[in-house]
């Protein structure tokens, strides 16, 4: 029993770490540009498939390095051409546009790579379990968590200490003033969007190694990230981090006792949080409008 519980808590943390990575990208874009990026799952899938395509040439490690920035470049192009005209308009429009993009991504990946699921081979060194007793902790899972930890740390360092990061945080609070101070807001938004999509691409590569690839996987992974953001508190990246881990563990633990409810528990958690603390766990007062 204890081992089962441990197994599922670990599992939950690993899944949670993964949700965190996705939710942070969504959250970055949402906070600065007020855009709910419905196509985030689509970008994840694209990142995964790019990794799948280039792995035979550059290996898994190469793909891990190359695929996310390539995804970010695609994201940048889309932001420039399609999303930029919508800033300042009702958020409804960017929501509908990215919604349509998600359709195009799903259908496009199916068209290019086929509807059949594709496996991505991970290096042998990562594929083995670390010990017999804790068979479920494979090297790959540890590696996944480590990668997420590094990425999240880098993101927070970037936001805290670099000029770009400080501008992004300032823009989140008051974009107009930031613009009045002579900062190129359009550029800021583009870079911020690209950073968010980079995280989606990275999640895609990691997910490909763990789950394999399917054109439809993006939509299924999107919703937990939404919940992570709402639970953690909109406007707070630390909150998103906390929210993602929390729902991951909650659904892991529930899987022990009531497997059918492991998905539903996230929604219950969200309802409870909204009931007790409408702005989310770490959401700021001004952000709840």
């Amino acid at each position, binding site marked *: 029993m204890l081992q089962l519980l441990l197994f599922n808590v670990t599992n939950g943390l690993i899944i949670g770490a993964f949700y965190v990575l996705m939710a942070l990208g969504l959250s970055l874009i949402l906070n600065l540009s007020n855009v709910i990026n419905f196509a985030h799952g689509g970008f994840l899938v694209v990142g995964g498939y790019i990794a799948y395509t280039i792995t035979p040439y550059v290996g898994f490690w190469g793909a891990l390095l190359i695929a996310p920035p390539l995804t970010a470049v695609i994201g940048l192009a889309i932001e420039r051409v399609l999303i930029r005209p919508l800033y300042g308009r009702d958020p409804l429009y960017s*929501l509908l546009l990215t919604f349509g993009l998600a359709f195009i991504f799903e259908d496009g990946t199916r068209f290019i790579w086929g509807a059949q699921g594709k496996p991505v081979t991970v290096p042998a060194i990562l594929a083995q379990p670390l010990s017999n007793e804790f068979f479920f902790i494979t090297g790959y899972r540890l590696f996944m968590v480590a990668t997420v930890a590094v990425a999240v740390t880098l993101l927070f360092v970037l936001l805290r200490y670099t000029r770009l990061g400080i501008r992004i945080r300032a823009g989140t609070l008051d974009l107009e003033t930031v613009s009045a101070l002579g900062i190129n807001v359009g550029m800021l938004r583009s870079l911020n969007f690209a950073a968010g999509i980079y995280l989606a691409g990275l999640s895609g590569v990691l997910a490909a190694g763990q789950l394999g690839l399917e054109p439809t996987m993006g939509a299924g992974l999107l919703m937990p990230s939404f919940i992570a953001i709402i639970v953690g508190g909109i406007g707070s990246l630390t909150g998103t981090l906390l929210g993602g881990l929390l729902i991951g563990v909650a659904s892991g633990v529930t899987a022990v006792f009531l497997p059918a409810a492991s998905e539903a528990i996230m929604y219950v958690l969200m309802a409870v949080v909204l009931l007790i603390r409408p702005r989310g766990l770490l959401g700021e007062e001004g952000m709840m409008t």
Partner: protein
Amino acid sequence: MSNQDTTRKLIALACIWAVLLLVPYWMPPLGGYTALGTRVLVLGLAAMSVNFLLGFTGVLSFGHAAYFGLGAYGAGLSLKFLAPSTSLSLLMGMLLGGLAGALLGTLIVRRRGVYFAMVTIAFGQVFYYIAFQWSSLTGGDDGLRGFSRQPLDFGLFSIDILSSTNNFYYFVLVCFAIVVAVMGFILRSPFGRTMLAIRENERRARFLGIPVERHIWIAFTLSCFFMGFAGALYALVNNFADPKGLHFSQSGDFVMMAVMGGMRSFWGPLLGAAIFVILQDYLSSVTVNWMSFVGILFVAVVLFFPRGLLGVIRSKSEA
């Protein structure tokens, strides 16, 4: 409003109803079929219910398919387990959708804008998972089957709406007319005017002493009731309830219909639904990549026709 405007409006209204009444006569010769008209009517009603909130209160709900789907399941379960009565099933579907909306609305209404949208999407998915997981009751992924609409029994005579598509079309049209009349009545009432005031300037409405949150909750609940009714009708159309009807991508379709037709106008969503349904019907019969085309349609409408067809027509006629 000037006299001329009123006449113009009456003429437009008469045209709309004439077109709707004569669907079984003009649709088949044009290459369509009456059942397609029925679907347009039901999905149009759903899009109008979404627009009741979106266009007239200015609140973006992106999870309304949940209440639509609940209506469908409510109607189906009522026909299957409760009593073989069409009118009861409509009532049960409407109640299920509306009450769920009223309950969740209390959690949702304190937020606005994108955050409102996010919370509505996330809550909407709850019902999708329930329908998906609870397969003993709902049929899970396969959907709820094993029920069919029943003849309308008026004591002295009964009308067969199962086998005659024309009869069923007119039945749906009558239901549609009733709900649309209620909707129009609410929008003309002082309450409806208050909704518009909130849409135009929420802060000012608040300063005037209007309890904004309560009004939004009422509008949200009402639109969920309408949505549940539309969903119940949809279950009768298909004799089937599908978990996909609860999914957030269905919500996106409804919002798209409203935007495409023109969300500032009362009839716009119906026009949007007609275009959307017919286009989807056509595309899925000619290409397997219809999803891409629908996606491109979304992108194109947002970039080039954000005010929708009726919005464009109206600004042209005013210019």
